[in-house]
């Protein structure tokens, strides 16, 4: 596996990127989800004229503002890292990422930023209708921002609609529509946004539970719980459906990721899904050791998830690494040979161009194009390097799914008790409800761990491994900036938590 290689600088750069992305993702889900909850709260105020709904809206809007301000521009740090730590990658994808990111800035961010000012400062300064419109625009703008970022991420998981320019060493956009409508981009967008809506619901339920436990702001808490738990319940179903679609896409486009998620080493027909399992940590690809010390499987479910057919074959890690001619699966060693041929053809093409030999250049370019889609494999030293870190992916996926199954149940129980007006006496439930925020964050972060760790060693699937994407930097340089970020981002998160807790303690405006 790639972690066993001596890649100190690249691993520091990966750790730095993971740290920044994970801190960024502390703020993003709450922004995406709470913005829509605010829009619903304010719509109730607009429709009913009940000032209690205005009080509810203004309170959650304050917490939204804290989160928005703390999270603002944390994504920019990732872009700084592209230029410094990942300059090869940054150069290669510049033309592809340029379009979605420019659209993101031009439309989504400006919508979000412009209407945020009206939403936050415009109470009693603009009409009720325009204020409501602004709140909806903030919600739509925030989520459109996420769309373009996930389009870019989807392209890295499933690169389509581009051609590699061998003179400039970069991918050039050929078909923006296929980039935008990539199945991976769509399923990831649906899953990331719906899980963010669910997370925001958990946040509202959790903070409201705290008020109920302290017998404060009971009316606000009950109203908030009813709306948030209903919202959470509805979006839980979309989380499940979009998660299923993402797994189906993985089976087709990133089968190694799915195999790692399930720790499936030997491919099977009618494969079962592991509900619980303890991995045998000495298990390696190609050996005959058992995969699990203990496991409970749901029969046929993995085949159904991967192929929508109960008795279908799901390839395992060994099939994908060593090949399975019976199933027409090409092994990584064959792909390494083709990848090296692509690198060799690229080198010969460049030499022919320098020697002013266009006929030879064309011939080598043609040979390069034949093997271009295997380019990344040419950088692997052994077939086993194409396998991601199985325990991290396997356990992260399990924990995410288990938590993701608990959340809709929590929403359902909260909704029922709040509608029946019996929520105020449920001390146990309310105390457990306080855990929904940390557990929601855990599930949300682990979703990204599965998505990103599951596609290792690739920065761009099958085309560019992370160690080639990285800049030629000394490990100590990346190490230094890692610790600079650790301190700065730690301080930012601490400031966010302090301000947020203070605002929660202050509570809503007095009537």
């Amino acid at each position, binding site marked *: 596996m790639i972690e066993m290689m*001596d*890649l100190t600088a690249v691993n520091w750069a990966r750790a730095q990127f993971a740290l920044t992305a994970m801190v960024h993702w502390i703020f993003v889900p709450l922004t995406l989800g709470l913005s829509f909850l605010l829009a619903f709260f304010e719509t109730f105020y607009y429709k009913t004229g009940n000032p209690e709904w205005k009080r509810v809206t203004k309170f959650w809007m304050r917490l939204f*503002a*804290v989160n928005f301000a703390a999270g603002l521009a944390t994504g920019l740090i990732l872009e700084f890292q592209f230029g410094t730590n990942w300059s090869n990658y940054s150069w290669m994808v510049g033309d592809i990422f340029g379009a979605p990111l420019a659209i993101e800035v031009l439309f989504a961010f400006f919508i979000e930023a412009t209407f945020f000012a009206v939403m936050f*400062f415009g109470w009693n300064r603009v009409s009720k209708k325009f204020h409501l419109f602004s709140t909806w625009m903030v919600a739509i703008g925030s989520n459109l921002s996420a769309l373009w970022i996930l389009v870019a991420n989807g392209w890295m998981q499933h690169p389509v609609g581009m051609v590699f320019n061998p003179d400039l*060493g970069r991918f050039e956009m050929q078909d923006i529509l296929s980039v935008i409508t990539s199945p991976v981009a769509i399923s990831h967008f649906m899953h990331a946004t719906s899980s963010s809506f669910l997370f925001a619901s958990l946040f509202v339920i959790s903070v409201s539970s705290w008020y109920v436990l302290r017998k404060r702001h009971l009316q606000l808490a009950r109203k908030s719980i009813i709306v948030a738990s209903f919202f959470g319940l509805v979006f839980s179903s979309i989380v499940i459906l979009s998660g299923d679609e993402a797994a189906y896409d993985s089976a087709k486009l990133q089968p190694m990721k799915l195999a790692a998620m399930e720790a499936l080493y030997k491919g099977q027909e009618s494969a079962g899904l592991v509900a619980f399992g303890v991995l045998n940590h000495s298990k390696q690809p190609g050996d005959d050791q058992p995969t699990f010390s203990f496991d409970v499987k749901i029969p046929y479910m993995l085949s159904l998830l991967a192929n929508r057919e109960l008795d279908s074959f799901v390839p395992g890690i060994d099939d994908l690494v060593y090949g399975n001619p019976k199933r027409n699966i090409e092994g990584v060693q064959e792909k390494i040979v083709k990848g090296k041929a692509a690198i060799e053809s*690229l080198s010969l093409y460049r030499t022919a161009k320098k020697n002013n030999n266009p006929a030879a250049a064309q011939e080598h370019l043609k040979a390069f194009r034949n093997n271009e889609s295997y380019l990344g494999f040419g950088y692997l030293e052994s077939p086993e390097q194409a396998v991601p870190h199985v325990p991290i992916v396997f356990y992260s996926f399990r924990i995410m799914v288990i938590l993701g199954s608990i959340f809709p149940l929590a929403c359902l129980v909260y909704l029922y008790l709040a509608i029946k007006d019996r929520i105020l006496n449920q001390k146990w439930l309310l105390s457990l409800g306080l855990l929904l925020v940390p557990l929601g964050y855990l599930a949300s972060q682990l979703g990204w761990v599965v998505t990103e760790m599951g596609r290792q060693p690739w920065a761009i699937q099958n085309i560019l491994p992370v160690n080639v994407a990285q800049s030629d*930097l000394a490990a100590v340089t990346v190490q230094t900036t890692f610790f600079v970020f650790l301190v700065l981002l730690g301080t930012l998160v601490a*400031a966010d938590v302090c301000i947020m807790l203070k605002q929660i303690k202050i509570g809503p405006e007095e009537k």
Partner: protein
Amino acid sequence: MTLGKTLWKLILIKMAILFFVLKLVFFPNLLKTKFDTDMERGDYVVEQLLHQAPSERSSN
């Protein structure tokens, strides 16, 4: 201090650190710093692609 003032202060301090410390001191755009033209940058990246195949790659 009102919430609005606290948040503005947080945003301004963060932006100052981002653009005047991190970007200028720690995070230059390497290819833009090293090379003047896109052709030079492209050449450099392709050379990196050609020379990082396993037989020639040196560990960091």
